């Protein structure tokens, strides 16, 4: 089974974790100003890159903390894990949801 390195607990089996989707999707500054289409874009639409992807994970069977991880979607390698509120390492350059934000406010 694949091991996922929890930033708190260290390497644990994948079965102990829950997946939380794309990380760093910013809540709209002015939700009331969005059209239905823009709101749908924020709620439902996510990047789907081949390669490094910043994701949220939660160590459900362990410390129950959310954290972020950069995972290569082609190889399943976890390239980095970092705590909530932190930014992904620059050297990895994952998709960060920026595309999304631009679409939503365009």
């Amino acid at each position, binding site marked *: 089974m694949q091991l996922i390195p929890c930033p708190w607990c260290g390497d644990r089996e994948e079965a102990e974790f829950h997946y939380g989707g794309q990380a760093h999707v910013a809540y709209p500054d002015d939700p009331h100003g969005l059209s239905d289409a823009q709101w749908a874009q924020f709620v439902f639409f996510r990047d789907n890159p081949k390669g490094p992807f910043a994701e949220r994970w939660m160590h459900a069977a*362990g*410390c129950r903390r959310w954290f972020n991880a950069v995972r290569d979607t082609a190889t399943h390698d976890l390239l980095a894990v970092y705590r909530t509120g932190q930014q992904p390492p620059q050297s990895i350059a994952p998709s960060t949801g920026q595309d999304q934000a631009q679409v939503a406010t365009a």
Partner: protein
Amino acid sequence: MTVETSIRLSPLADWAAAFDQLPADIQVREMPFRTQLSLRLDADGPAAASVAEVIGVALPTAPCTFVGTDEVEALWLGPDEWLLVAPPGRQAQLQDALRAAIGDEFGTVTDVSAQRTTLRVSGSLTREVLARGCAIDLHPQVSPGGTCVQTQLAQAGVVLLVRDDAATSVWLLIRPSFAPYVASWLVDACTEYREEAP
């Protein structure tokens, strides 16, 4: 209206006889009704220092560890969360002392004693039997005495405390609804270590 009953049954009250039949090199005993308090506070804040004075030991900040005295042990469950464990019947006294010590600082103390029962597993087979359902490496180099991991044992969520450096004494904190399942799994996992029938 709550109905007060005078009889209190632990989740594994019926399992003592089955545990007695286990191979000689592994002993399993339930330690029911232990006092358990959930403690949430900022590890660097003033409340942490106040709590340390009450329980006589600083709250562990290293992930997956526990520390304690004869009276009370503090289990790391998260960066701002601990489980304080003490012998049965100390809930009110410990809770009052902690709340008084925390005062107006930010922190919460919640009695969760009914949330888990405790299974004490000991003997030279402990590590080998647990390895059949638990992915955590209990080798002393990885999990020395003082290790406290939240993980899965045969897919059931457990808090696992390593009591000594040889992992021959392990305590499992288990939800009552999962306890009979974990007990039956343990008894089954021990089957192949039984002495051959004559």
